[in-house]
């Protein structure tokens, strides 16, 4: 079933109010994930001498929920207007087209909203998302890239890697499973240089460093407040840039004199799909193993909070796990069947599986000389 997933990234203090608004609109089920966003602290005073730009982190909440295409712009428009996401620094909102493959009946799937009329706002359409998965502790290095580049503000979340590590027996404890996921939404024409910097800074061309992948975004508004600086003008630079963004209907005009040529030829991977499996806490590792037996290379498992207005459950486990897997598109069917066979979409694990297309991805690949015929 094709539908639209809407993602909102906002300062944590606002999360409760957004959730209440969404409930009022008829969105009764949504997922929440804790993350952090960062800004460059330009006026860091004395510390400037030591570090050029300090990174200041603040907690954010990443909300997501499913709607159908008809309601998409209305919801986007309402939230964008109410929380003034047009102004830089307020937050990010975007929509993605996804395909729900299997789902436990607990998830209501596409939710109807109460809008009578449609609301249209000038959203950017030339957007893509990049997610970069690296070892815990490396995240700030990656976050810095898009901030220094002036692209947009990333949101970092935590997860645990599962894959080759779990096949090592007890030797696995020597490899820390903790990962950081840096999620970034940015203008399409910034993709290549940012991706190249990701690979370079994150050393993704070395084994065991991580992966970065690019996926399409339907439309949205991007947070472009990349630095914290005193404003002594009528409007900050970011405000002006974002005003021009709005006038031009996109960010393409910011032609990049900055844009750097990709110096190296990179072997990107194509024909991939991101599979997301949401399940009860504690089931993720087991289900990842099942998926791996059908060709998934591994997964990053994150904890998310499942918020639902259904009040029938007194003591409900609202923490779920989401297993993100980047798999060859050809194997999606087989993996879905394998997962289905485990019975995870029934009451045992209350799972939901949806897929998103991936434009391209980059990670270390072992030289394939050893491969026997």
């Amino acid at each position, binding site marked *: 079933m094709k539908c639209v997933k809407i993602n909102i990234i906002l300062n944590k203090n*606002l999360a409760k109010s957004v959730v209440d608004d969404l409930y009022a609109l008829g969105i009764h089920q949504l997922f929440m994930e804790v993350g952090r966003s960062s800004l460059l602290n330009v006026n860091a005073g004395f510390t400037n001498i030591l570090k050029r730009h300090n990174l200041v982190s603040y907690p954010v909440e990443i909300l997501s929920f499913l709607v159908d295409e008809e309601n998409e712009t209305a919801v986007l428009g309402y939230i964008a207007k109410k929380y003034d996401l047009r102004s830089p*620094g307020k937050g990010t909102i975007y929509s993605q087209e996804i395909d729900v493959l299997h789902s436990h009946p607990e998830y209501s799937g596409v939710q109807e909203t109460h*809008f009578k009329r449609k609301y249209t706002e000038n959203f950017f359409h030339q957007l893509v998302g990049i997610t970069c998965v690296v070892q815990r502790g490396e995240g700030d290095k990656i976050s810095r890239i898009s901030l220094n580049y002036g692209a947009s503000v990333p949101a970092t979340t935590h997860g645990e890697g599962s894959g080759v590590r779990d096949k090592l027996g007890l030797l696995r404890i020597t490899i820390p499973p903790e990962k950081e996921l840096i999620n970034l939404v940015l203008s399409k024409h910034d993709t290549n240089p940012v991706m190249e910097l990701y690979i370079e800074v994150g050393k993704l061309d070395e084994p065991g460093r991580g992966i970065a992948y690019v996926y399409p975004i339907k439309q949205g508004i991007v947070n472009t407040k990349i630095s914290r600086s005193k404003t002594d003008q009528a409007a900050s630079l970011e405000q002006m840039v974002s005003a021009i963004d709005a006038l031009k209907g996109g960010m393409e005009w910011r032609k990049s004199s900055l844009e750097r040529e990709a110096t190296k030829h990179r072997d990107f991977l194509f024909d991939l799909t991101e599979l997301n499996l949401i399940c009860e806490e504690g089931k993720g590792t087991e289900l990842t*193993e099942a998926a791996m037996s059908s060709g998934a290379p591994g997964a990053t498992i994150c904890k998310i909070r499942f918020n639902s207005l259904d009040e029938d459950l007194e003591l409900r*486990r*609202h*923490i779920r796990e989401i297993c993100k897997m980047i798999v060859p598109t050809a194997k999606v069917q087989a993996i879905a069947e394998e997962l289905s066979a485990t019975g995870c979409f029934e009451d045992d694990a209350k799972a939901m599986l949806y897929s998103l297309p991936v434009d391209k991805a980059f990670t270390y690949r072992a030289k394939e000389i050893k491969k026997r015929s």
Partner: protein
Amino acid sequence: MNKKKESPRFRVSSNEAINMILRYIRIKVSEQIKAVSGIIVYLILFQALVLGIPILDASVIALGMVMVILGLTFFMEGLLLGIMPMGEEIGIRLPQKAKVHVILTIAFILGLASTFAEPAIGVLKAAGSSVLAWEAPLLFLFLNKYSSYLVAAVGIGVGLALVLGMFRFLKGWSLKPYIYILISILLGLSLYASFHPNLKHIIGLAWDCGGVTTGPVTVPLVLALGIGISHVANRGGENTEGGFGVVTLASLVPVIAVLILGMMFSAQVPAPMDDVSFFAPDNHESVNLFDSVSEMQDYAISKASYPAQLNAFNGREDDLMAYVAKIGSSEARLREVFTTLDNFRTWLVQNGSIGIKDQFSEILTLEAEGVAAANNPLDDLDVVTYISRNVSSALRAIVPLSLFLLAVLYFVLRERLAKADEVLLGLAFALVGMAVFGGGIELGLSKIGDQVGSNLPVSFAPMENHAGRSIIKGFDKELVNVAVQPDGSTTEFFYYEDHGKIKVAKFDAKNFDEIRKLYRYVPVRGPLFGRSPYSMAGILVVMIFAFIMGYSATLAEPALNALGLTVEDITVGAFKKSLLIQSVAMGVGTGIMLGVAKIVWNIPLFWMLGPLYLLLLVVTYLSTEEFVNIGWDSAGVTTGPITVPLVLSMGLGIGTQVGVVEGFGILAMASVCPILFVLGMGLVVNLRRKAFLKEYEPENLELTHEDVAV
């Protein structure tokens, strides 16, 4: 699961495996070296450079330090691989399968068991070893005869705390009202106690109990369990995010329990008095403090003045002498009562009758070798008991709790442990780590801590320097002169030539061997800072020392590291571990510094704790729920296996010099200050965030979903 395919194991060559393990060990060990080296280097430098005293047993201490680092490495890894995942998983499963009353029962048992598993009573006994029965009878009773009651009261307190904490998670309540209510009760009880002659001495004990009960295994376990349980809650469970808060309760409720226990027994003990009337034959209540009459007599002989000793024997000197003669003839009894041969000798010189002096003339003589050997009889290490003691305390801390939780998982919940191999390996690591770590503390850290602690008062007061003592041969009473003071009292002294310099030395009868004409000369050092004893400069040096010691010891605490990692993980790095640990360490340093001030100037504990806790109530009211939970929990984890022995040796060193009744309260101060620091830091962080994210405030657009259209 209908179908299960075995995924093939990944093959790794043995060479690669060794490389992986070596890299892993290198990373983990270097983490601990970073954490521990600060306190080690600091103590060594302070003793060698500031106090100017050589380090005794340096090689044993070095071995101990290596053991501390290795032990901590294993223990931390065991916490992260075994104890915490096990706690979290059980916490997740419990509310699913068990009814509320079952969960609360399990929580109570866990709290009770954890107190018995990691008994802090040894620590408290050590802190109270200078307590005299007649000065603080109630305190003496709880530290000795009724110490099991004390442990039980603390256990029940921790059990109740866990029940309250888990109930809070299930209901999604805020921690703040709990704090307001508990602190009000606590301050009320302490205020009442501070006006009661007997109860006022157990205030320090009660507050210290709160700090030390939450040990390095209990804290991470309870934290993880809380994280699991807090994943299950009604909507609006934002208050209990992260599973913090139980540790706070576990350090507050036991204080109440101990104070109540004190009130229950305060009628049964005599009021504080001097030792002569305490041991008076008609004071029958004093025997209640001891198991038997002979134990009381032992105690009188080792601690009380001579007239009081006579009183303990109904005024019959013959009985007393016969009793001491019997003690002197048995090596074991001698150690039990006098600890060292030297103490026995001193007793004989000061109190002995001619008959008993004759009987023990061998001991009365001062042979150079004999003195050296007699002074350190307890220092030679019994390897077998040393190993078995540390192994068994590690077993007791980890095995019963883990078995109980695993039994709950398998038999009550009928679930299996995911990654059971990893958890078991983790538990084994924790066990090995704890044994090695405990042994290392005993050999290394407490040894150097004792040396520094006992020598510390030299910075503000004159102290005998036993390391520099010598035997003067051919000493005669005729060499002794008398100096007179304005009020007519006299001091005996003699002249002593040391490397061509003529010094004046006080004469002390207990160092004089009349038979062989030997005198044991003990030079006096200090005060090193300031001109006169107890000058501000000297005390300031001690306070600065206390601050830095508290600060650097806290950086190495394993439970705090576990808390820091949890906080960082739950806030996805927005709240950095290092920020938390730094503010807690500053808080502990400040607290210990204030605790030293309490001992030096003998300030009543309540007048230090009361204002601080009142201030805390205000700061708590102003702070966000997130910081309140983390800040208050950090108070419980600060006083761990590294800080406590160091604080105790320092407190004892200063306390003995100053002559206070009891040295309790430093740990309580070290618990309250970190809360203030963390909450204060939280307020600053929040203000800053607000200041530069002002634009994040939603403009109150009066939009409803009806009029969203254009």
